[in-house]
Structures are given as structure tokens and as C-alpha cells.
């Protein structure tokens, strides 16, 4: 369970109306702006180029870092390799001391946030000015950034006016144009008197030792132009091999970050240039001094990790935050002090700062695994996949929480015990139950039923109804086995009955192997590999003897897990790996299979609008759409269903907020997410919302029930079965 501090932070952010308003408006505007920006280039091709270039670089990071250093040095740049944040701070402090510098201007550098550079410099008596407008506002407010690209998105003009008035000691009108001019004047003075400029870098080119800077305000150009000395702080992950390798970065970063084709300024600096120094009224043009600090601080460990090296593909566009349903609710601060969102949790886990790395353990829980970030990441990073790996790492290191460990090791790994407990649960819940929904829970669990009614465990699971559901098929077109998964067995057995009816109506002979158990996905989410192996073996064995053409599942989370992940579990056991592969190859998803049969049987004819009486809309399950890539089949099935008119709802593919156990762990976050979904369902005017996933069904049906809505939630199988 999440710790109390994280809970408190979440509650605080949820109550921050300024933040919620800003994030809501941004979430609405961002996808359109991004799509428009990519309209004039080949988005997928560019993402692939970026991914390929970055993967090649990280595989050869030592050689490219050496080349970068050598080429920069050859051109007169002073390169220093810093192992830790302390090394960076010491280097800069020593330099300031030896030159007698007191005044520093900074343009944006995430590493400097990561290592708390400003604090160290100010403690040593130096005057440091952040010059990026957002960062300057934060320095006045004493805040940390809540977004990598828009650091002050959590503040509004009124709050910012107050900070300006306090800093500049005069009245400032609430007028953004005027406030920006005031900032320009105040910071221009700081630029002109600074002796040292510190910048970050968006890329560093090994071929000629150049650094690249991407900005809109022009502060990076002033920071690197005016002072006598320029220090660029750059992480190893920013190194690219060749000058031309900057192209995929420049084609994606501005488009993904802010929906711009390019930022106002992109500058590349190779070697020291000149600077103008005014002394006693005379101005001299002198040679400038350029230092590059190449920072490790945990980054080289990432490069050498076979799973996590993929985060070198990150260009820090923050688009993963922009589409994250959880970020949209709470903003960046709950994720820790520097890097927000899923990518932030992963980066933070590898940093040298142990407190930060430990914090990553709590913030990784904030991932719904909905996969929207993976879909749009310019570097094609599988962020939810890496979060899973991160969970595994933490479990290996710290072990499971006590209760969860007992639950998984003793209950989940023993099918009979697990299923007996589920049956007992159906009796135990009786006092709280009405109409197959639990509306209240005992007080300590009551948060879980605040926005949704939870489904009751059915009195009779599907496994007890298999005989009545199974028909003899005279000359079957195929023989298949059904993998129900726990929910469609114990919670929604009626959906499984519909699955049987629909497939049998297509002429498929179906069998149900009774030894099947939980697919393992919930356990994998918690990082318990040991229990996972037991479950996988149990399921593989259960289906091996069935002699079927394929195995069908109507739960996409199960289909994904047993179809794509099982063989990865047995990396050190070739025999089981082969058995797992043979098993996985047979897995088919229900809507996909049925749409193929209907197509062959000429039953996929789209019903013209208005021909059916009942209006139905569809909600995409994250697993079904983004992992299995299935989103056309369900729509075609619904569009062809007799008696229905299909209506597409707004944001159909945005997560419903269930996210495996997320909805149970964080009801306070899951609730507002499902409320948005319900509002879109209502706005569609549909009477039925169809889903292809039992977890979405639980979340959406529960929420509609709680609001006493007349809109029904049905699995597609039920609609096709005429239920």
C-alpha cells in the first residue's frame, strides 16, 4: 500500500484547483497540437530513426564519450567528467573561487535540479539567477519544477504576479505581457553583469565535440554569449555520434514537447568562441572559456543494464507526462523533486542519490500501465514495461510487503486454495451485496466503494456452469480451448457463457481445461517472480493435452500476459521456454477471432446509422488497443450488430482508471479518471457502453451503478450473444 506521505501529497494536489484547471486545459489541447506539428513529416519513420540512433549510441557509449571528449578538447573546450553531483558542484565552486566570480546566470539544466546545484552555489555565497522564465518564477516561489518543459504550469498569473511584486518591490498588474516585460528587464541586468553562464545541453556531438541547445526564450543564447566563461552540464545520455544525428532529435523534441515544428532558437556550439568584456568603460573582445561537464551520477549504470538502457532514448520532451492520466490529475510534484511521471520514476531509481532512488519505489506505483506514453514517446521507450521491471527489482531487493507476500506465495500459487477462497468470498460478502454489486464495504476499505460499486463474486463460477454451456458441434470448423481468467470465471461467469454461445454459434468446438488458474499478470505487477513461474507452469500444463487449434481469451490482460510474456519467464530453462512458446503461439483474443468468422460468413455488414434502436458506444481497453493492437474488430462487430446503432465516444481510448490493482490502491486517483470516462459515455448519448475487458467492465459498470445511471455496461460477447 502507498505510504502516508504520498497519500497526503496526492490529496493536496487533488484539491489544488489552479493546478487541476491548468492540467485539464493542457490535456485537452496537447494531443491536437502534437498531431498538427507532426503533420508535415513522417512521424513513425522519424521515431524509428531516433530509436535506432540512440540504441546504437548507448551500446557504444564509452567509445562515443571518449570521442566527444577528444574532439571537444581538440577545439579548445575544457572537458571534465563528473562521477557524481558532488563532483559537479566542487568543480564549479573551485572555478568560481579561482577566478573570483560571484555572479552566475543559468539557462535550463535538469541535471542542475537533479543535483541541487543552486543550493550549493548559493550556500557558498554566489549569486545565481535562473533565466528561463518558468525556472525564475520557481526560484522566486521556492518551488521545484512540476513539468520538464513547463516548469511552472502549477501556478497561475495571480500567484506569479504576487511573487513578482515581492521580488521587484513594486506593483505589478495581472497582465501576462507586462509581467514578461518586467522579467526581461530584471533578468537582462543579471545577464549583463554575470561572469559565468551555466547551461544544460539537449545533445552533445561526438564527431566535433559540439553541444546543442533548444530554447524559445533566447535565454540560452544570452547565457552562452554574454559571460566570459560558459559551463555546459551534460549527461552521458545526451551524446550522439554524428552531426547529422541531431536531425531526429530536432524533428521530434519540439513537436512532442510543445507542438512546435521547431523552437525559436536552436544553437550548436563547438569550441570556445569570443566574448566582449567591459572594463573601466573600455570593451575588449577576448577569447571565451568553454567548459563541458559530462555527468554520470548513475547514468553509466543505466547504459550497462540490458533492460533499462532504453531510457537513453529519452529526449526529455515530457510528452509521456502530457498524456498520462495520473499526471493530468496530480502534476509533477508528487513524483519527487526533479523528474516527473513514469519516465521520471525510472530515471530517479538509477540516480546516485539514495533518498531519491528509494523514492522511486513509491512513485512507480503511480503508473496505470495504460500505455498511452509508449504510444507517443519519440524514442519509442516502453515506459510501462520498464516500470514492471523496476517493480521486480524493488521486490528482489526489499521483498514483498508482508501480507502481499503471504497472499501470493501461499494462495495464488495454489489453485485449489485460491479458488476455494474465492468461493468463500461469495458467501462472505452477502451482507453488503445487492444486485450483484457491493455498494459498501467495512469502514477500513470504504474508500474503494466511494465512486464505484464493486462487483460481487458470483455465487456460481463459470467452471461450475461449463457443462450447461457446452454444446456438441456436428462438424466443427475449429477446436478451441477457453482461457477464462479469474474475473470471467468468478465475477462475470455470464460473460463466459456468452463467449461460449457466440463461438459455438460460429461452429467452433470449445473445451474448458479445469486445471487453469490465474494468468499471473496481477502477480507480475507486484514483481513476485517465484509465484509467477508456478502459475505459468500450471496453465501451460493445463492446456498442453487439449489438442486444440487455438486457445481463446476474452480478457485482454490475460491474453496479453499468457500470449506475450510467458516465454520471457523461462530464460534459464530452455525446456519450459519451448513449452511456453508453443502455448503462447496458440493464444487468440475473442473479438479478433469472432470478427474473422463473421467476415468469412458475410456477417460483418455495417448497419446504417439509425437502423438499430439501441445506441451503443465502445470503450477501448488499454491492453486490447495498445498492447494487442485490436481496436477495429470490436468496432466492426458492434457496427454490424443487428438492432444497434454504433456511436463513437470522445477519448474512447483513454484509460478508465482501473489499471490492474491501481484502482484498488489509489481510489482517490482512479475515481476522477473514471468520472471523465463516464462523462464522455453520457455525452455520447449511448444507452449501452460495450467493453472488451472485464477490468474496464468492473470499473465502468461500478461507477455507472454508483451514479444510478440507466446506461448499461456490457462485454461485447454479451451483445453478440443477444444478452
Amino acid at each position, binding site marked *: 500500500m502507498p505510504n502516508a506521505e504520498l497519500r497526503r501529497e496526492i490529496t493536496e494536489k487533488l484539491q489544488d484547483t489552479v493546478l487541476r484547471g491548468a492540467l485539464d486545459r493542457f490535456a485537452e489541447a496537447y494531443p491536437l497540437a502534437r498531431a498538427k506539428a507532426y503533420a508535415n513529416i513522417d512521424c513513425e519513420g522519424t521515431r524509428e530513426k531516433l530509436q535506432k540512433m540512440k540504441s546504437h549510441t548507448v551500446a557504444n557509449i564509452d567509445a562515443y564519450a571518449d570521442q566527444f571528449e577528444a574532439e571537444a578538447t581538440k577545439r579548445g573546450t575544457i572537458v571534465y567528467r563528473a562521477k557524481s553531483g558532488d563532483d559537479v558542484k566542487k568543480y564549479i565552486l573551485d572555478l568560481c573561487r579561482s577566478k573570483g566570480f560571484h555572479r552566475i546566470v543559468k539557462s535550463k539544466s535538469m541535471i542542475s535540479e537533479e543535483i541541487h546545484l543552486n543550493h550549493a552555489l548559493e550556500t557558498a555565497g554566489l549569486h545565481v539567477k535562473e533565466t528561463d*522564465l518558468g525556472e525564475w518564477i520557481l526560484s522566486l516561489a521556492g518551488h521545484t519544477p512540476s513539468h520538464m518543459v513547463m516548469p511552472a504550469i502549477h501556478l497561475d498569473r495571480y500567484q506569479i504576479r504576487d511573487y513578482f511584486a515581492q521580488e521587484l518591490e513594486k506593483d505589478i498588474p495581472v497582465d501576462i505581457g507586462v509581467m514578461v516585460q518586467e522579467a526581461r528587464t530584471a533578468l537582462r541586468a543579471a545577464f549583463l553583469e554575470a561572469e559565468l553562464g551555466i547551461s544544460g545541453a539537449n545533445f552533445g556531438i561526438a564527431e566535433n565535440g559540439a553541444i546543442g541547445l533548444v530554447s524559445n526564450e533566447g535565454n540560452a543564447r544570452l547565457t552562452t554569449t554574454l559571460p566570459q566563461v560558459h559551463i555546459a552540464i551534460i549527461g552521458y545520455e545526451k551524446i550522439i555520434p554524428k552531426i547529422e544525428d541531431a536531425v531526429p532529435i530536432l524533428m521530434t523534441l519540439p513537436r512532442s514537447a510543445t507542438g512546435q515544428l521547431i523552437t525559436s532558437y536552436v544553437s550548436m556550439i563547438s569550441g570556445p568562441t*569570443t566574448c566582449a568584456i567591459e572594463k573601466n568603460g573600455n570593451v575588449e573582445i577576448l577569447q571565451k572559456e568553454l567548459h563541458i561537464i559530462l555527468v554520470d551520477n548513475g547514468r553509466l549504470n543505466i547504459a550497462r543494464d540490458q533492460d533499462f538502457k532504453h531510457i537513453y532514448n529519452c529526449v526529455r520532451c515530457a510528452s509521456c507526462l502530457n498524456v498520462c492520466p495520473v499526471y493530468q490529475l496530480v502534476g509533477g510534484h508528487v513524483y519527487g523533486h526533479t523528474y516527473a511521471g513514469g519516465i521520471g520514476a525510472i530515471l530517479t531509481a538509477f540516480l546516485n542519490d539514495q533518498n531519491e532512488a528509494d523514492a522511486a519505489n513509491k512513485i512507480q506505483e503511480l503508473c496505470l500501465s495504460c500505455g498511452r506514453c509508449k504510444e507517443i514517446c519519440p524514442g519509442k521507450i516502453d515506459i510501462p514495461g520498464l516500470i514492471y521491471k523496476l517493480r521486480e527489482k524493488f521486490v528482489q531487493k526489499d521483498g514483498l510487503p508482508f501480507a502481499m507476500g503471504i497472499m501470493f506465495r501461499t494462495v495464488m500459487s495454489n489453485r485449489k486454495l485460491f479458488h476455494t477462497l474465492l468461493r468463500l468470498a461469495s458467501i462472505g460478502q452477502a451482507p453488503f451485496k445487492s444486485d450483484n454489486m457491493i455498494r459498501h464495504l467495512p469502514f477500513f476499505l470504504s474508500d474503494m466503494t466511494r465512486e464505484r460499486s464493486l462487483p460481487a463474486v458470483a455465487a456460481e463460477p463459470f467452471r461450475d456452469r461449463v457443462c450447461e454451456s457446452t454444446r456438441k458441434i456436428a462438424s466443427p470448423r475449429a477446436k478451441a480451448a477457453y482461457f477464462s481468467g479469474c474475473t470471467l470465471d468468478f465475477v462475470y461467469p455470464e460473460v463466459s457463457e456468452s463467449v461460449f454461445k457466440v463461438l459455438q454459434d460460429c461452429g467452433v468446438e470449445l473445451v474448458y481445461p479445469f486445471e487453469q488458474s490465474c494468468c499471473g499478470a496481477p502477480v507480475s505487477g507486484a514483481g513476485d517472480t517465484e509465484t509467477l513461474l508456478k502459475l505459468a507452469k500450471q496453465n501451460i500444463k493445463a492446456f498442453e493435452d487439449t489438442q486444440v487449434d487455438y486457445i481463446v481469451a476474452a480478457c485482454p490482460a490475460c491474453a496479453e500476459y499468457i500470449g506475450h510474456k510467458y516465454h520471457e519467464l523461462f530464460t534459464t530453462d530452455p525446456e519450459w521456454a519451448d513449452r511456453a512458446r508453443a502455448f503462447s503461439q496458440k493464444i487468440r483474443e475473442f473479438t479478433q477471432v469472432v470478427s474473422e468468422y463473421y467476415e468469412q460468413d458475410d456477417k460483418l455488414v455495417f448497419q446504417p446509422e439509425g437502423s438499430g434502436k439501441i445506441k451503443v458506444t465502445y470503450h477501448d481497453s488499454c491492453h486490447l488497443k495498445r498492447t494487442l493492437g485490436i481496436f477495429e474488430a470490436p468496432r466492426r462487430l458492434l457496427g454490424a450488430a443487428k438492432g444497434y446503432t454504433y456511436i463513437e465516444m470522445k477519448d474512447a481510448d483513454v484509460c478508465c482508471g482501473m489499471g490492474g490493482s491501481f484502482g484498488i490502491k489509489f481510489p482517490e486517483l482512479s475515481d476522477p479518471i473514471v468520472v471523465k470516462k463516464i462523462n464522455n459515455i453520457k455525452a455520447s448519448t449511448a444507452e449501452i457502453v460495450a467493453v472488451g475487458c472485464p477490468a474496464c467492465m468492473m470499473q465502468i459498470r461500478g461507477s455507472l451503478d454508483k451514479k444510478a445511471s440507466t446506461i448499461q455496461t456490457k462485454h461485447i460477447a454479451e451483445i453478440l450473444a443477444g444478452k
Partner: protein
Amino acid sequence: MSNLKHWESYLSAGKHGIQYFPEYENRAKAVSAEVTRVVTGQEAAASILATLHAVDAKMIVCIPEVIMESINLINIIKETGITVYTKPEDIAKYAKEADAGITEMEFAVAETGSCVENSAKVEKRLCSTLTNLHIGLLKTDHVVATIADAFTVFSKTFDCGYLSFITGPSRTADIERVLTIGVHGPARMIPIFIDHVGGIA
């Protein structure tokens, strides 16, 4: 130094030329660059004078290179009573108070509406960073199709120095995501494209 003198020679003929100007113009105007196209150097000078007098400019900083020299721009401006600084030390001293900065740029990029500035020398950058109004001079047929084409040139020519793409004026959206022009750099960016710098033959 990055030597962009013969940049065209690194691109095949179809990758650059006046045919890309309309796309450049559309994209640059979309991000508030005040794109101006003129036929002759005289028209360019007239356009610049009109702009400078419209803002009541008293003193400006300039880096004259090939284009400005061939159209005698500095003298034309001085004759109208505006003080013009062109020496590095003078620019360094006065750029922060100057009413405008005028520089020459290498080529434009159609895909993004950008102009490329080659400015290893600090005085050139002071003209385009510190002033509130930046005028950049280019030839109309100096437009490449894409950012990738620009980098094909850089990969052959960029050894050391300071290269920038400048795309419209300085902007920020850091307060409530409201687009605001002119935060640290120039609030106005006027690229002037000249069809025939040396006059019509």
C-alpha cells in the same frame, strides 16, 4: 570555424532553391516572423529604412557582410541621421541600448520556417540577441527544403563555432501557457529576402 561559404555545393540541385521560398514564408509567418521579400537591393534598403523610422530608431548595430556592402546599406542608413555601429568593440558597448540589429544570414529552411545564423564572432550574436528588433538579410533562392538538408550541409562544414536556427521572435508560454512574444531575445524578427542583390542584369 564553420565554413558555410559554398553551402549549396553540398546539396543536390532539387534540395534547395527559390521553389522552397513559399513554404518557408508560410511557416515563418505562422510563428510571427515578419517575412519580407523584395526584388532589388534598393528595395531592401528602402524597406529597412521604413522599418527603422517607423520605430523611431536613433542608433543601431550592424555586421555588414556581402549583401550589406553590395547595397551600400550602412551609408544609406547613416544618411538618414541614424547612428550605426559596425565595429566589434562598438557593438559590444552599444548593442544593449540599440534600437535594432541587422545581420546577414546563411540560408532559410522551408520545413520549419527557420533561418540559419553563422556567428562564431560574439559581435554578430550580440546584434541578434540583445536588440528588440532583429533584421536578417538573405537571398531569396537561399532556401533548403528540410532540417535534414541543413544538417547535410553542417556535417560537411561545421567544425567549430556557433550556429543557430532562428525561427521567429523570442517567445515564452511559461505563464498559464499563454504565448507571449519577446521575453529575452528580439520581440520582432524581420527576415528580408532579396531576389537580386546585385541588381537586375
